[in-house]
């Protein structure tokens, strides 16, 4: 079926709605509008390198990285346990794992407000057993918690999927050659699961570093991440040029992250980015 024309409507659509907008973004980030003149400039990017803004960048990356690591530490064992369970439970448990993701993202984040408040459930429980109330909300702890909560299934699923595909006979071969379960894990299972781990890291780090909902709702406006910064620039301050510049920086971060992980990625889907 030599019908490449079928894709033309789509190509046109994408040119209009994806390529041109990106072009606009790039345009805005490199220009200043001063009345009649539009000049090319680096100032917006330079502005980004001021300490206040760099701090925001650093904080975003740090929080996202911490969340990613926590997701990995909690998620890898979970994926292993799920993989080791018997067939009839496996599917049910995977469904249960995925089910919360079907709930609205905002509702899931909002739900933690109830739990973490000063007058909320957790604090009430703490008081009931005689401890002090803790400040669980509107701080970095809450934001990290929100990130981990929202993204941990994205870490567990790829790792589980790769572990599932490991040929049983490789593990038996390792045992046959004298490796006890610990050595088998370190030398055989973990190396073979790396593609899943990298996939999980990407799928957690990227949304974590670009979110602004989690920081807005659970950080109460105290924690500013890059996402918040961009939103502010566009909707509050009205400085589209700066906002676009920050967006481009964000894209660069994403590309670097992906470049890292796709070095190990062997999968091709018939037309990839690299």
């Amino acid at each position, binding site marked *: 079926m030599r019908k490449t024309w079928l894709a033309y409507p789509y190509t046109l659509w994408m040119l209009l709605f994806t390529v041109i907008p990106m072009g606009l973004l790039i345009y805005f980030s490199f220009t200043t509008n001063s009345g009649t003149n539009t000049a090319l400039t680096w100032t917006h990017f330079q502005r980004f390198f001021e300490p206040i803004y760099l701090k925001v960048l650093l904080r975003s990356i740090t929080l996202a990285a911490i969340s990613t690591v926590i997701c990995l530490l909690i998620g890898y064992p979970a994926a292993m346990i799920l993989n080791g369970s018997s067939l009839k439970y496996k599917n049910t448990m995977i469904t249960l794992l995925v089910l919360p993701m079907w709930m609205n993202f905002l509702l899931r984040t909002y739900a933690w407000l109830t739990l973490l408040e000063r007058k909320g459930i957790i604090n009430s429980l703490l008081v009931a057993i005689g401890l002090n109330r803790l400040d669980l909300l509107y701080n970095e702890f809450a934001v990290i918690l929100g990130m981990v909560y929202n993204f941990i299934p994205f870490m567990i699923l790829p790792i589980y999927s790769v572990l599932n595909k490991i040929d049983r006979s490789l593990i*038996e071969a390792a045992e046959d050659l*004298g490796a006890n379960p610990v050595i088998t894990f370190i030398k055989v299972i973990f190396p073979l699961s790396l593609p899943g781990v990298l996939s999980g890291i990407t799928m957690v780090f990227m949304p974590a570093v670009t979110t602004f909902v989690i920081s807005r709702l659970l950080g109460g406006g105290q924690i500013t991440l890059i996402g918040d910064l961009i939103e502010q620039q566009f909707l509050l301050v009205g400085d589209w040029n700066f906002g676009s510049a920050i967006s481009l920086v964000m894209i660069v971060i994403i590309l670097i992250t992906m470049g890292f992980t796709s070095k190990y990625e062997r999968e091709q889907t018939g037309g990839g980015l690299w």
Partner: protein
Amino acid sequence: MADHLINLINVSKEYNGTKAIKNINLYVRKNEFITLLGPSGCGKTTTLRIIGGFEYPTDGQVLFEGTDLTVLPPYRRKINTVFQKYALFPHMNVFENIAFGLKIKKIEPKIIAEKVGRILELVCLSGYEKRSINSLSGGQQQRIAIARALVNEPEILLLDEPLGALDLQLRKDMQLELKAMQQRLGITFIYVTHDQEEALTMSDTIVVMNKGQIQQIGTPVDIYNEPKNAFVAGFIGESNIVSGIMLEDFLVEFAGCKVPCSDQGFATNEPVDVVIRPEDLKIVDETEGIFKGSVKYVTFKGVHYEMIVEAHGMDWMIHSTRLRPAGMKVGLKVDPYDIHIMKKVAANA
């Protein structure tokens, strides 16, 4: 029992209510090349995996040099396995794969390098140390799998249908190589296959299995010439098997004729299975044969002609280097020593 390296005593294995193997009794001697032979699902791989430690028996004992083997996990047994699909570690190169077991035993790197070099020589793949696994052909991967197991100098090597994925000529070459290796190294080989020719070529002892039970244990010659029951007769080599009645010692009736044979010890008029190998059934002139019939089909097999002769209401398979064309009327004759009588086996063994 001193030279019984492995002893299986009344071993059974059950999965979800069905018995994969029932009451297996067998022993394996030092330096023996013993083959578990049988069709798919007969339990040979299950038996092998129990010896290797990847399954635990539901009943019975597994002894290694007299002591209970089942208390040891696979990584503590002095046994190594060559897996059916090789199970080479894809993320390691040839050297790392072979050295895997040696590194665990904390052997010095210099000695490891030596041993790996020597074993690669043995499997005729010297210089392949740095190669990646998926750059190797099937036959090469196979030999690396063998090398990886052998380099650990196990007392027993288990081989689970290792030659199945290779093409015919390579398979035949590897059969001879494996046999030579086993004799040179003096290691006990326990081999699993469904290919009876392979078993006959390589083994000192063959264990024929079917439906989870042992049908016969013996040398290749014994099993081929004196099959104990219809199953073994049908599985090993080609056979003509027909029902008959043992009239008295040395006389059997089948296909409507009374034929002298060389077996005795059966009850008078006992129903038996009569087995005659195609190469033992001779085509002679119509007047000279015990049976009379005509040639139905002829197939050229290279080594001989295979002719199907219809006689006395049955189809008989004959192998001969002399061609009798289809339609020709012939007689069939067989020497008493070439008629094998066996007791009828119950329908569900």
